C-alpha cells in the first residue's frame, strides 16, 4: 500500500494559491537518506560543512529504510510569526511568501521552536539565534544538489493543489483501512 507523495511545504491550510509563488515539495519515496541536502544547506548558510547547523533535517528510520527530509512549511497561519516577541520571525510576501528570521532582531528565546508543530526552526549554538529555511533566497541548495530529485521547488499552483488533494485522499483511504 502506497500512501503517496508527502507534501512537506506549501502554505499549510491555504486554499487559493497566488501567481508565481514557489514551494518546497518532498517525495519521501525517492529519498535515499544520503543527507547531502543537510550538508549543502549548512555550507550555503554558515560556510561550514556541519549538518547540525542545517535548515533541513532528514528523519531516518534505518530498520525499514524510511527517510524523510523535513523543512519549513512556511505555514499560512505561522505560529512562529505569532509568538515571536521581537518581530524577527516575519513573512516576506515579495519572496515567495516565505517566513524568515531577521538575524539582527532575533534574541534567541526559542519561543518559535516550541510553537512550531513541525519542530522546524533550529537553534544555532554558534550564532546563538534561531534559524530556519529561507529557500536560499530563491535557489534552494537542497533542491539543486539532490541527485534523486526527492526535493523539488515548484510553483504553488493548482497542480500542486491537485497533488496535495491526491495525497490526502490516499491518506484518508489508508486511514479507513487502518480503522
Amino acid at each position: 500500500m502506497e500512501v503517496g507523495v508527502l507534501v512537506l511545504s506549501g502554505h499549510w491550510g491555504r486554499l487559493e494559491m497566488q501567481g508565481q509563488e514557489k514551494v518546497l515539495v518532498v517525495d519521501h519515496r525517492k529519498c535515499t537518506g544520503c543527507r547531502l541536502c543537510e550538508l549543502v544547506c549548512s555550507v550555503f548558510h554558515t560556510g561550514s560543512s556541519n549538518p547540525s547547523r542545517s535548515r533541513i533535517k532528514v528523519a531516518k528510520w534505518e530498520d525499514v529504510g524510511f527517510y524523510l527530509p523535513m523543512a519549513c512549511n512556511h505555514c499560512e497561519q505561522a505560529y512562529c510569526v505569532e509568538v515571536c516577541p521581537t518581530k524577527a520571525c516575519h513573512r516576506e510576501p515579495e519572496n515567495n511568501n516565505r517566513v524568515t528570521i531577521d538575524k539582527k532582531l532575533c534574541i534567541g528565546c526559542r519561543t518559535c521552536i516550541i510553537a512550531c508543530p513541525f519542530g522546524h526552526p533550529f537553534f544555532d549554538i554558534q550564532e546563538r539565534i534561531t534559524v530556519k529555511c529561507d529557500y536560499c533566497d530563491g535557489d534552494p541548495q537542497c533542491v539543486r544538489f539532490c541527485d534523486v530529485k526527492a526535493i523539488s521547488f515548484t510553483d504553488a499552483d493548482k497542480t500542486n493543489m491537485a497533488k496535495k488533494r491526491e495525497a490526502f485522499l490516499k491518506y484518508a483511504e489508508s486511514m479507513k483501512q487502518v480503522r
Partner: protein
Amino acid sequence: MGSVHPIRNARYLKPQKEWKEIIAIYLYLAGMGAGSFVIGVLIYWMDPKPNPSFLPSINLFGYALNLSGVPIFWGPIMVAIGTPFLILDLGIKWRFMYACLNPRTSWVARGFIILSIFIILGLALLAKSLLPFEWLHGESVLWHIVEIIALVFAFGTAIYTGILLKATKSIPLWNTHLLPLLFLVSALSTGSMAIILSTLGTGLFPYDTGAFRVLMRGEQIFVVIEGIVLYLFLSRRYRAAEQGKDSVRLLLFGEMKLIFWGGIVLLGFVFPIILETIASFFPGSPVLIFAAGILLLCGGFFLRLGVLHAGIKEQIPMHRLIEIQYNVMTDKTKALAGVRLKNPDELIADG
C-alpha cells in the same frame, strides 16, 4: 512492559527541551513574588496592628528606615530577581530590550510589559513604605491608585506565567485555561506561605494572633484549591489529546514521576498539610510552620518544573501519515522475513 513504538516515542513524542530549569525558576519566582505581593497588599489594606518592636532599626544617611512594610511588600524584589533568569535563557542576552516589539500577538512581549510595570510600581510602593519622609505617607488618592494598579499587575504577573505556556498551541498539556488558573492559585498559596514565613521570621505579627490565623487559614484554603485545580488540570489534559495523555502519563508514571510524586505531591501538598495540622496542636512552636513553609515553597517550584518538562508536542496529520507508512513498511519487512524463514522449513518438511 510492551515494546516502545520507534516513531511515536523515539522522535515525535519526546517532551520539549527548549525551556528547562532556568525558565522554571523564572516562572516560580515571578509567580511567588506576585502572589506574595497580592497577599501583602490585602494585609496592608486590612490594617492589622503590626509589632514593629521586633524589627531591627536601620539608619541610612541619618534617616531611620521604617522596616515594618518590608515583610509584606518584598514580592517585587523576587520578581525582579526572577526576570534576569529569563534574560539568562536568551541566546543573545543584551538584546532583551527588543522583547517588547510585538505585543499584538506575542505573550512574551506582553509579559515583558506586564512584568516591567509591576516591578516598577511594586518597588515604588516598597520604597515608599521604607522611607521615613512624612510627605510620602500623607493620605493621598494617588498612592491608593498606585496600589490598585500594582495589585492588578501582580495578578497579571501571576496569571501571565501560565498564559505564557498556554499560548503554545502545539503542546496539549499547556494549551488549557486551567494552567493559568493553576499557576495563579499556586502563586497565591506559595505567596501567602512566603508572607507567613517572612512575618513569622521578623515578628511583624505576634505569633498566633488574629491576623496570623487569618493568613494561615487563607494559605490552607489556597493549598486545597490548588490540589483540586491540579487534579482537574491533569484529568482534563489526559482526555484532551493523545499527547495530553502522554504528558500526564510521563508526569505520573514516566521519567517525571519522582518530580510529580516526590516534589509536587509530597513536598507541595502532603507534608505541609501534615506539619500544619501537627503545628495546630503545638501553638507555641513555629518551627513546624517554618518546615511546612519551606517544603511548600519547594513544591511550588517542582510544580512549574514538572509542567514544563512534561510538555509534548501534538501529533499533526503528517506524523500520523508517517506512522502509517512506517507500519506498512514494517509489515512488508516482516512478511519478507517470514517468507525467507518459511522457505527453508518447507524445504526440510518436503525432505
